[in-house]
C-alpha cells in the first residue's frame, strides 16, 4: 500500500472514531448542530450526484428534499409509521418524484435543466402551499419523532438526542458509502462521461436520456432521505423546506465545498451550516457574506474550498514529495 493510500485509510478511521465518540466529546447543543450538519451533508452529496458528477446544474433540489420531509412527518402523523419505514418512505417518495420530473427535466441541454428544475420546484412548492388539507399550507404540519423498531430486539426511543444522533449518522454513512460506491459503477462512470462528452456517449450507443433519468432518481432518493430526516429532526415541516431558498442553499453549499471532489459537498455543508450558526448570531447580514463568498469562489476558485485545500496540499506536501522522488531515483 502506498503511503498516501495508507494515510487516507488512517484519516477515515480517525474520522469515524471521532464521529462515533461525538456524544462524549460535545454537549447537547453542539450535538444538535452536528446532526444538522450531517443531514445537510447528505443533501449536498445527493445534489452533487447531479451537479459535480453529471454536470447538471439544478435549481430545484428542494422539491425532493421537501417532499421527503413532508412524507416522513405525514407517515408518522397519519399512518403511525415507526422511524425507519418513515425515513425510507421519504427517500422512496423523493425517488418517485425523481422519475416523474426526470422524464421532463433531462430531455434538453444544460441551460434548460437549470430553467426547468427551478420551474418544477416552483410547481411543487405551489402544490404544497395549496394542498392545505394534507400539508397545512403555510402553517405546516407537525409530528413527534417515533421510536426506532428493531426486529427481535424491541423499540429504541428517539427522544434522546444521542440515540437520534446515532440513527442519523448510520443512515448517512451508509448513504455516503453507497454514493461513493456509485461513482465506481458502470452507471456512475457513464454519468461522468455524460458530463465530459455527451455526444460521444451517445455515439458509443448508450441511452443518454434514460441514464440521466436514472441518475436523477438516485440523486432524488437521497435528497428525499435527507429531507425525511430533516423533517423528523424538526418534528415540524412547513413550505420553507421546499422553497427556492432551500434549493439555492444546497447549490451554494455544494459549490462552496467544491463539486469536483467526492467529499467537497460534505465540507461545504458542514462549513456553511456551522458558519450560519455562528455568524447569524453575530451579524444579521450573514446571507450577504455567504453570497459574496459564493461569487468570489465562482470568479477565482471554481473548484471551491476542497479545490483550494488540494492546491495548498500540493504546494506544501506535494511539492516536497515531487522534489524528493527524482533525487531519490537519481541516487538509486
Amino acid at each position, binding site marked *: 500500500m502506498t503511503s498516501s493510500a495508507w494515510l487516507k485509510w488512517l484519516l477515515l478511521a480517525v474520522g469515524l472514531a471521532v464521529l462515533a465518540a461525538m456524544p462524549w466529546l460535545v454537549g447537547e447543543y453542539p450535538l444538535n448542530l452536528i446532526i444538522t450538519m450531517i443531514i445537510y451533508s447528505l443533501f449536498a452529496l445527493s445534489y452533487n450526484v447531479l451537479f459535480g458528477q453529471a454536470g447538471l446544474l439544478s435549481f430545484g433540489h428542494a422539491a425532493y428534499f421537501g417532499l421527503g420531509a413532508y412524507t416522513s412527518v405525514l407517515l408518522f402523523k397519519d399512518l403511525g409509521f415507526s422511524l425507519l419505514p418513515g425515513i425510507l418512505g421519504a427517500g422512496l417518495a423523493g425517488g418517485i418524484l425523481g422519475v416523474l420530473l426526470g422524464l*421532463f427535466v433531462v430531455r434538453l441541454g444544460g*441551460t434548460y435543466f437549470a430553467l426547468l428544475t*427551478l420551474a418544477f420546484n416552483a410547481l411543487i412548492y405551489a402544490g404544497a402551499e395549496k394542498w392545505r388539507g394534507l400539508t397545512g399550507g403555510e402553517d405546516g404540519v407537525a409530528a413527534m419523532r417515533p421510536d426506532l423498531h428493531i426486529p427481535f430486539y424491541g423499540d429504541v426511543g428517539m427522544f434522546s438526542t444521542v440515540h437520534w444522533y446515532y440513527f442519523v449518522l448510520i443512515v448517512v454513512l451508509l448513504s455516503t458509502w453507497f454514493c461513493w460506491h456509485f461513482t465506481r459503477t458502470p452507471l456512475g462512470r457513464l454519468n461522468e462521461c455524460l458530463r465530459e462528452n455527451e455526444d460521444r456517449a451517445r455515439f458509443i450507443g448508450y441511452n443518454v436520456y434514460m441514464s440521466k433519468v436514472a441518475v436523477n432518481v438516485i440523486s432524488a432518493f437521497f435528497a428525499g432521505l435527507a429531507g425525511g430526516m430533516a423533517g423528523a429532526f424538526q418534528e415540524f415541516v412547513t413550505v420553507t423546506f421546499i422553497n427556492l431558498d432551500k434549493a439555492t442553499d444546497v447549490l451554494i453549499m455544494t459549490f462552496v465545498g467544491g463539486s469536483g471532489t467526492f467529499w467537497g459537498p460534505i465540507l461545504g455543508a458542514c462549513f456553511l451550516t456551522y458558519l450560519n450558526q455562528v455568524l447569524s448570531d453575530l451579524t444579521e447580514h450573514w446571507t450577504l457574506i455567504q453570497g459574496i463568498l459564493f*461569487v468570489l469562489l465562482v470568479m477565482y476558485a471554481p473548484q471551491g474550498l476542497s479545490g483550494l485545500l488540494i492546491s495548498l496540499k500540493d504546494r506544501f506536501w506535494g511539492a516536497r514529495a515531487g522534489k524528493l522522488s527524482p533525487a531519490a531515483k537519481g541516487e538509486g
Partner: protein
Amino acid sequence: MDTLAALPVQALHGLVYGMLLFLVASGLTLIFGMMGVLNFAHGALYMLGAYFSFSILQWTGQFWLSLLVAPLLVALAGALIERFLLRKVHSYGHAHELLLTFGVAYIIEELVKIFWGNEPLRVVLPALLAGSIPLLGIEYPVYRLFILGVSIVVFIIMFFVLYKTRAGIIVRASVANKRMVDALGFNVPLVFLVLFGMGAWLAGLAGVIGGPYLITNPAMASTIIIDLFVVVVVGGLGSIQGALIASLLIGQLQSIGILVLPQFAIFFEFLLMALVLIFRPHGLMGESK
C-alpha cells in the same frame, strides 16, 4: 353570467401583466440568444428598478423623473455586472456564467433587504395616474392603462430598432452567428456590454412601472423569475417573438385562471409549460439544434 361579464376586464388585466412580463423577458431572451447566458440576475435588476424609483420618488417627489433616471441606473448596474464580473468568467463556459449571475442575484436581493428593509413599500402615484376611468363597464385603474401604454411604446421602439436600424441588424446577426459578426470586424465584447445594459434598462423600466402595481418588495425578483423562466421555456430560448407570445399567453392564463378556478390558477402556466415540453420541447418559436 358574472364570470362572463368579468371576462373582458380580466383579459385586459392579463394583457397588462403580459406586456410587463414581456419587457423583462425580452432583455433576458436577447441576452441569452446572443451571449448564451441565462441571466439569473435579470429578475433582481427588475427589482432594483422598482426600488431605485421608490427612493428617487422619496427624495424628489417626481414620478416622471424616476421613470427616466431609475432605468438608466439599472442599465449602469447591468453594464458594470457584465464588464467587471460576467466577462471575467466568460472563458469558463455558460454553466459558470449562470452560477455567477445567480450569485449576483443573491447579493442584490440581500442588499435590497439591508437598504430598504423586508416590508413591502408603498409608492405614491402622481394624481394623473392615481384615479380610475370608466372602461368595459367598470371603473378601471388608470395606472394599469399607463403600464400598458408604456410597454406598447417600448415594444414598438424595440422592434423598430431591432428590425430597421443598423444596430438592430448587428444584434440580430450576433444572435444568429456570433463568430461571423466577430470575423466581420465588429467589436463583439462592446456589443455584449451594450446589449446587457439595454436588457437591464428594459428590466429596470419594467420594475419602475411594475413596482406600484405588483407591490415593491424583496420577493419581487424571485416571483418574476419563475414566470420569466416559464416564458422562456414556452416561447423558446432566445426567440423574441416566442417571448412575446408566451408572455401574453401567461398573462391571460393567470388572469382568466383566477376567474375560472381561483384555487388552481397558479398551476395553469406550469401545465402549459409541461405541454410545450412534451409536444414542442424547444418552445413554440424555438429552433431545435
